């Protein structure tokens, strides 16, 4: 019983990162109608960003977010301008296909680049308080992962406020709903795309930072994170930031449960089962429009 509760807690903590990873992917997909399969590689880059800032400059990993997120935003602006600006000129059906090609290409390039620059070793940020745990009865909660969950909460809340209160946030939502109508009301749709992509990349960078602290990064984690994010996006459906985050936590808990009940190797299976079941039973997702 205790072991199960402990697994559930770890599942929630990991699920928060799934949620954060998925929100970025969901934003880009919902607004640009572009599926960025290199999203996981962007997370990987964020992870290395934090790893090197901590290792070389001795910055606290959570403080490194203040650098990693803006740098990721800039990277997003650059990637959009260099690659995805051409994709969104196509009509919506061609977009997903084209973006898959570009995304896979980008993923391969970033992966190879990371291996070359930083070797294929698995790395993890070491902090003085890294081993600290909060003990509740027989349960222990790793402090670093709990802080990561808190940061994810703050970022998700911030994004929600941005999309509901910022002028361009509203324009991004309007573009996601109906880009032609958005164009009609005088919204610069291309700029809404650019902003959404940059924000999505910034969130990926933030997720990567947190992954490198509580877990570990290597050049090959990208695909796995893209997959998790995709499962969460399908589960949640498009159009709800909070819903996507909740679905991420749900996936984390479901994985922990299946690992506890059926054994460790089944951890990965449950997500794929959810993926298929949701697509068959409720294709627009739990919180989708």
């Amino acid at each position, binding site marked *: 019983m205790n072991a199960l509760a402990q697994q559930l807690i770890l599942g929630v903590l990991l699920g928060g990162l799934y949620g954060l990873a998925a929100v970025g992917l969901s934003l880009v997909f919902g607004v640009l109608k572009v599926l960025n399969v290199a999203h996981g590689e962007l997370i990987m880059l964020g992870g290395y960003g934090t790893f090197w800032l901590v290792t070389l400059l001795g910055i606290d990993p959570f403080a490194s977010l203040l650098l990693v997120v803006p740098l990721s935003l800039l990277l997003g602006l650059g990637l959009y301008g260099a690659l995805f600006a051409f994709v969104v000129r196509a009509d919506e059906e061609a977009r997903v296909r084209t973006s898959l090609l570009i995304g896979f290409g980008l993923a391969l390039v970033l992966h190879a680049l990371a291996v070359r620059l930083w070797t294929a070793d698995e790395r993890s940020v070491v902090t003085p308080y890294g081993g600290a745990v909060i003990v509740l009865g027989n349960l222990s909660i790793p402090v670093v992962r709990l802080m990561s969950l808190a940061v994810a909460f703050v970022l998700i809340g911030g994004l929600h406020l941005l999309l509901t209160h910022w002028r361009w946030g509203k324009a991004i*939502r309007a573009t996601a*709903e*109906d880009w*032609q*109508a958005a164009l009609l*009301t005088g919204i610069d749709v291309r700029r809404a795309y650019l902003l959404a992509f940059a924000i999505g990349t910034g969130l990926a960078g933030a997720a990567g930072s947190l992954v490198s602290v509580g877990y570990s990064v290597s050049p090959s984690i990208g695909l796995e994170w893209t997959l998790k994010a995709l499962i969460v996006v399908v589960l949640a459906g498009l*159009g709800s930031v909070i819903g996507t985050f909740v679905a991420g936590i749900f996936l984390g808990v479901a994985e922990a449960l299946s690992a506890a009940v059926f054994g460790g190797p089944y951890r990965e299976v449950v997500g794929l089962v959810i993926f298929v079941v949701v697509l068959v039973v409720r294709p627009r997702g739990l919180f989708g429009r």
Partner: protein
Amino acid sequence: MVPEGRRLFGGMTVEENLELGAFTPRARPARKANLERVYALFPILGERRRQIVRALSGGQQQMVAVGRALMTSPKILMLDEPSLGIAPRLARAILDVLVEINRAGVTVFLVEQNVRAALTLAQRAYVLESGRIVVEGSGAALLRDPHVRQAYLGPLAASA
């Protein structure tokens, strides 16, 4: 410009839809005043400003579409089939507001298949058939025109 089918942002609130109407830099300064003006024209929208547009009736949604178009302080308001798929009573109410908007100095350019209602309002009217103007004149004159009565207002109207 009020497009056919309204093309509102269904998942956003009434007020957000209206504000997006004044998104361009030129329209932004007058945003507050125009918002008040729209709420004065359609008081029901003021009561429902926080509601999601998709939850409104078709007629109320059409009011939002007209309101959104007014947010740019237009000199000319173009509407494509504003009475399409709307309860007749509400369609009538929207057309009445168009008269009010027109009195306030905005040219109203209306494409409408509800011929009788449109002709009652129109100062100038044109009947298009297969893309060509076949009849034109004042709304009142067209209402009396035998061809128009026969073709658009029904046989009973033609004989009366």
